[in-house]
C-alpha cells in the first residue's frame, strides 16, 4: 500500500519523547512539514540519549543536560509542542484523539507511536521490590542509584547482557565490589558468539569483577525492607549492598493493544513502519517489523533513528521500504565494541586479529556474512557494515587473514 503525502498542514501527534519520538519530530520539520506537531512524553526531561546512562552518566562524567538531544529552545523554535510529564492513556481511533492521563485530549490526523520499552523487573515474590534493587532505563533510575556508587559497596548485577556488563564496568571502575550473575550457561548468550563472550569474560575478570555463569537467582533477602543478600539456585548466598537488574526489556505495547492494533512481539508494522491502522505508525524499541522471512524488533539507537526517519519520509510523501541496517556499540573500560549486522542464525565464526590489540569476530551462515563484532577495531567495523549493507560476503578465509586489506574488499 502506498501512502499519499499528507496535507502539509495535517496534525501529527507523537507518543513517547525518546530517541525515535525526537527524531521523527525533528525530521518532519527538516522535510518541511508545516502542520502542528505534538510530542508527548511521560518523563519530566526533554528527550535524551540513553546509552550514556550505563556509561559516562553512571560514572558521573557527564551532567544531565549534556544528555539532551537538543536544548528546550529547539522545540519552541520549530513549533514542536513538547508536552513533558504527560502520559498518553488511550487512543480513540474513531474520533482520532489521544487522551492524556491528566484528562486533556489531543486530536491527530496521523499518529506515531514511539513508546520504547521498559525493563523487565525481578518479581516481588523473590524480593524484586526491596529497596536497593534498581534497573537501568531512565534518568530517574540512575539518579536513584547514584548514592550507592561508593568505593567498596557490594553490587550484584543480575544479567550478563550488554547493559549488565556496562554497569559492571562502571561499578568496577569506581571501586565497588562487583558480582555479575547470569542464569544462562554464558554471558551474552542471546546476542553474541562464545568468542565475544569469552573476550568480555576475560576483560571483566582482569578488572576484578566476579562473573558467575549458569548462576540463577533464587531470592533476594532484605532487612528492614532493604536488600542485603542474594541466594542463588545452588544454595550459595552473596551479601550485597544493592542490586542492578539487567534482565532485558519488554516493548511498551499496551496503549496500542488497547486501541486494537496488531501486536506481535511489539507493535506490528509493515515495511513503511505503518501499524494495522494506516493512520498510525510506530518506530523504535516498541515496533516489530518485517525482516527477511520473519519479523524482528531491535533495541538500538540506530534502529530508532532510521525507523523514525522512515516514518517522516512516508508522511511527507516519499515512502521508501524501511531497510534495517542493524548496528550497535558498547563501551566497557577501555574497550569499544562495535557490531554491524544481526548474528541470529549463524553457524560459524571466523576470528580476525586486528592491529593494536583489536580483534573481530565474523559471523557466517554457510557462505553468507551475517554480522561482525569488532573490539577496538573501528576500521573493521566500518568495512563490515558496508559489506553487510551491500549484501556482500567475502570468504571467511580472506577476512580471517590479517594480511588482507579489508578496504580493498569494498571496491
Amino acid at each position, binding site marked *: 500500500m502506498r501512502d499519499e503525502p499528507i496535507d502539509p498542514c495535517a496534525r501529527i501527534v507523537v507518543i513517547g519523547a525518546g530517541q525515535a519520538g525526537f527524531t521523527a519530530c525533528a525530521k518532519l520539520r*527538516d522535510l518541511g512539514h508545516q502542520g502542528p506537531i505534538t510530542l508527548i512524553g511521560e518523563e519530566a526531561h526533554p528527550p535524551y*540519549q540513553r*546509552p*550514556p546512562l550505563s*556509561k559516562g552518566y553512571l560514572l558521573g562524567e557527564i551532567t544531565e543536560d*549534556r*544528555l*539532551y*538531544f*537538543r*536544548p528546550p*529552545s*529547539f522545540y519552541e*523554535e520549530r513549533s514542536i509542542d513538547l508536552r513533558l510529564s504527560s502520559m498518553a492513556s488511550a487512543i480513540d481511533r474513531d474520533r482520532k484523539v489521544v487522551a492524556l492521563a491528566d484528562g486533556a485530549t489531543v486530536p491527530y490526523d496521523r499518529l506515531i507511536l514511539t513508546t520504547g520499552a521498559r525493563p523487565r523487573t525481578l518479581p516481588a515474590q523473590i524480593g524484586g521490590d526491596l529497596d536497593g534493587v534498581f534497573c537501568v532505563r531512565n534518568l530517574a533510575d540512575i539518579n536513584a542509584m547514584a548514592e550507592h556508587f561508593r568505593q567498596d559497596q557490594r553490587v550484584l548485577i543480575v544479567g550478563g547482557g550488554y547493559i549488565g556488563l556496562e554497569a559492571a564496568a562502571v561499578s568496577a571502575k569506581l571501586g565497588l565490589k562487583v558480582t555479575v550473575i547470569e542464569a544462562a550457561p554464558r554471558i551474552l548468550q542471546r546476542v553474541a558468539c562464545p568468542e565475544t563472550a569469552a573476550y568480555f569474560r576475560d576483560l571483566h575478570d582482569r578488572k576484578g569483577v566476579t562473573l558467575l555463569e549458569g548462576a540463577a537467582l533464587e531470592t533476594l533477602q532484605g532487612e528492614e525492607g532493604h536488600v542485603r543478600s542474594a541466594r542463588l539456585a545452588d544454595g550459595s548466598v552473596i551479601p550485597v549492598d544493592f542490586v542492578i537488574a539487567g534482565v532485558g526489556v519488554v516493548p511498551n505495547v499496551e496503549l496500542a493493544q488497547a486501541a486494537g492494533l496488531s501486536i506481535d512481539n511489539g507493535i506490528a508494522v509493515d515495511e513503511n513502519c505503518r501499524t494495522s491502522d494506516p493512520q498510525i505508525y510506530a518506530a523504535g524499541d516498541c515496533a516489530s517489523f518485517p525482516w527477511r522471512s520473519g519479523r524482528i524488533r531491535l533495541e538500538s*539507537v*540506530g534502529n530508532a*533513528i532510521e525507523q523514525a526517519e522512515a516514518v517522516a519520509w512516508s508522511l511527507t510523501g516519499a515512502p521508501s521500504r524501511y531497510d534495517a541496517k542493524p*548496528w550497535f*556499540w558498547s*563501551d566497557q573500560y577501555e574497550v*569499544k565494541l*562495535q557490531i554491524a549486522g544481526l548474528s541470529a542464525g549463524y553457524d560459524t565464526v571466523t576470528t580476525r586479529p586486528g592491529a*593494536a590489540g583489536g580483534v573481530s569476530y565474523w559471523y557466517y551462515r554457510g557462505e553468507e556474512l551475517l554480522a561482525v563484532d569488532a573490539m*577496538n*577495531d*573501528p*576500521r573493521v567495523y*566500518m*568495512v563490515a557494515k*558496508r559489506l553487510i549493507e551491500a549484501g556482500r560476503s567475502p570468504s571467511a578465509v580472506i577476512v580471517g587473514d590479517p594480511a588482507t586489506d579489508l*578496504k580493498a574488499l569494498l571496491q
Partner: protein
Amino acid sequence: MPRISIVAKDGTVFEIQAESRTSVMENAVRNSVPGIEAECGGACACATCHVYVDDAWQEKVGPPGPMEADMLDFAYDVRPNSRLSCQIRIADALDGLVVHVPERQS
C-alpha cells in the same frame, strides 16, 4: 569560556561560548547546528559528527586519534583537515576555533 564558530553548510555561522572540556559536537548539538547528526552521542562509534577544521586552526587542534582516524576513513568527503567533532575537546587554547560542517554525513 572559549568562543568557537561552527559554519553550517549553508554558510550560517554559529558563534558559540563553549564550556571547557565539552566537545565541539556537544556545542553544535546544544546550539542546534544543522548537519551534525551525532547518532552515537559522542562515543566515536558512528562518524556522523564529521567537521573540517579551518586551515588556520589545524595545527592547534591536532590530528585525529587512531580510533577516530579509522572511523573517519569511511566518512563522506574526507579531507586532510577532517575530524570527528565529538573527539575535539574545548580548551582555552582553542579560543576562536572555526570548524565547517560538511555537505552531508555518511
